[in-house]
């Protein structure tokens, strides 16, 4: 008899946590401890040699953090996961484990700014070069591949471009070159999209956003599919004795979770971007209601998009959940349906009539929408990228980043839709000079 395959709503509450063996506590205890005792010298040696699984020090693993790791792995349909201090840390753990000096990355162009910096500046400092391509062009990904390419990186749903990645097509390009596809799945969250189903090999999340959902806590998670053939000759770090950890051969020893073990023991252990147990606990409080929240984010965002599309003060609306959006068919294929239509998450962008000055006036007139740089909060958040996050770029660079002068981005929250629409409407009225 096959094991029951539990649904995401159930996994969001249960995966990774059964009642505590010692106390019977039903809710997750916070193991606020740096270190764990050894039973004996031999036990200590076995733990350090990875012959026995167990906790040593919370920079490597912690029982509260492990629940977050397993829960996100389960929600993504992955084999194993590694949590870290932020979404950027999760991305760094994945890429620093994958890549070494002389390697090359092919990345979608319109990425989150922090990811662009990591690839174009920080990894370049280590001798790892990135070619940025048009994320909508499968041919561009293929044309950019080189003999030393070791990863393809893209976002399942771009922020703030709202471009939807054709995951299966890009995975095919990556796999034809024997390299993994790494997907940032922050904006859809694992409830709306599971990139591994479509061929992604590694998924990264800023758990700070929808996973936590409350806007209180920084966290990141990297998930491994368990399907990538690390013994294809391109990843000696996975198959040869580890210089960073006692000569362990990670792929041979740990098989389909070897990459996660290597990221934990070689990268997280050394760079120290560990997640605090209290932060893992807070994010897990959020994940329990992720499915409910994502449904409301989707229905609210669709209602906002329709309202904006019909508004005389609005020049254009970019929301992949609208049937007229160029990527709508991809959304329908890759993302969960919510209320009978494809769930496109809570992010949208639109143009205010009157350009940059009108955009600024709109933001300044907002009363309920919070003006800040985060996304994926319970609260509706709003930002005018041309005057804030992308201010340092000239108009041509802003254009390349998908940031128009009149563009306003809204992360639609969970307030009552009538109140959200009221605030948008009054701010649009105020945006007229």
């Amino acid at each position, binding site marked *: 008899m096959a094991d*029951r395959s539990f649904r995401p709503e159930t996994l969001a509450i249960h*995966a990774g946590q*059964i009642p505590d*063996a010692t106390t019977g506590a039903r809710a997750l205890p916070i193991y606020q401890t740096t270190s764990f005792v050894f039973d004996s010298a031999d036990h200590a040696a076995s733990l350090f*040699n990875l012959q026995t699984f167990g906790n040593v020090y919370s920079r490597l693993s912690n029982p509260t953090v492990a629940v977050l790791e*397993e829960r996100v792995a389960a929600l993504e349909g992955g084999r*194993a996961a590694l949590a870290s201090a932020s979404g950027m840390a999760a991305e760094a753990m994945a890429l620093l484990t994958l890549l070494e000096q002389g390697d090359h990355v092919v990345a979608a162009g319109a990425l989150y700014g922090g990811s662009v910096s990591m690839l174009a500046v920080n990894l370049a400092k280590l001798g790892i070069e990135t070619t940025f391509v048009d994320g909508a062009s499968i041919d561009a990904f293929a044309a950019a591949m080189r003999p030393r390419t070791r990863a393809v990186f893209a976002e399942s749903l771009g922020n703030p471009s709202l471009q939807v990645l054709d995951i299966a097509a890009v995975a095919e390009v990556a796999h034809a070159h024997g390299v993994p596809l790494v997907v940032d799945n922050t904006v859809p969250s694992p409830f709306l999209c599971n990139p591994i189903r479509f061929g992604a090999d590694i998924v990264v999340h800023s758990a700070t956003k929808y996973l936590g959902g409350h806007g209180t806590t920084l966290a990141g998670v990297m998930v491994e599919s368990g399907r990538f053939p690390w013994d294809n000759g391109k990843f000696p770090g996975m198959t040869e004795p580890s210089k960073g950890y006692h000569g362990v051969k990670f792929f041979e020893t740990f*098989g389909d*979770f070897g990459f996660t073990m290597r990221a934990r023991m070689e990268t997280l252990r050394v760079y120290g971007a560990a997640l605090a147990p209290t932060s893992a606990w807070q994010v897990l409080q959020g994940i329990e209601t992720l499915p409910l929240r994502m449904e409301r984010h989707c229905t609210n965002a669709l209602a906002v998009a329709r309202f904006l599309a019909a508004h005389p003060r609005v020049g254009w609306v970019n929301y992949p959940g609208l049937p007229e959006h160029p990527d709508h068919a991809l959304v329908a294929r890759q993302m969960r349906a919510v209320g009978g239509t494809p769930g496109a998450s809570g992010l949208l962008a639109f143009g205010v009539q009157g350009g940059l000055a009108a955009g600024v006036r709109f933001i300044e007139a907002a009363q309920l929408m919070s003006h800040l740089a985060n996304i994926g909060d319970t609260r509706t958040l709003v930002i005018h990228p041309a005057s804030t996050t992308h201010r340092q770029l000239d108009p041509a660079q802003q254009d390349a980043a998908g940031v128009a002068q009149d563009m306003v981005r809204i992360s639609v929250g969970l307030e009552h839709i009538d109140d959200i629409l009221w605030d948008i409407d009054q701010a649009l009225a105020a945006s007229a000079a």
Partner: protein
Amino acid sequence: MADDIPTLRRILRSARTLAVVGLSAEWHRPSFFAAKYMQEHGYRIIPVNPRYPEILGERCHASLETIEEPVDIVDVFRKTEDVLPIARQAIAIGAKCLWQQIGVKNLEAARLAADAGLDVVMDRCVKIEHARLFGGLHWAGVNTGVVSARRGH
């Protein structure tokens, strides 16, 4: 083929003695990792490998047939094409389970053992399954598939 959590739990709970065929004495080899782990979790390990006199403090046997005590699981760390005679020996010595490790997938051997009434596990690691079902693997952030409202062990 045992492929579900209750069956794998039953096999690992009821077994006490593992004959590990192809066990290496090199500490960094997967077979050594697995056997040492199982030994530390209370299982008796009987190494089967003609190349060594002793591994993990236990006398090595050249083959399953010279083992004089009851064997519960025959745990196979050998190439897929070498498993069939090991399956025949496992049946002959009255073992209760033929367990082929990750990457070892001899269907003929599995069928033979199953027809003789043995539990059959294929392409899985005893250590990983033990850790998955009894708590340890969860430590490593692995998706164990275990969902339960019952207290852990």
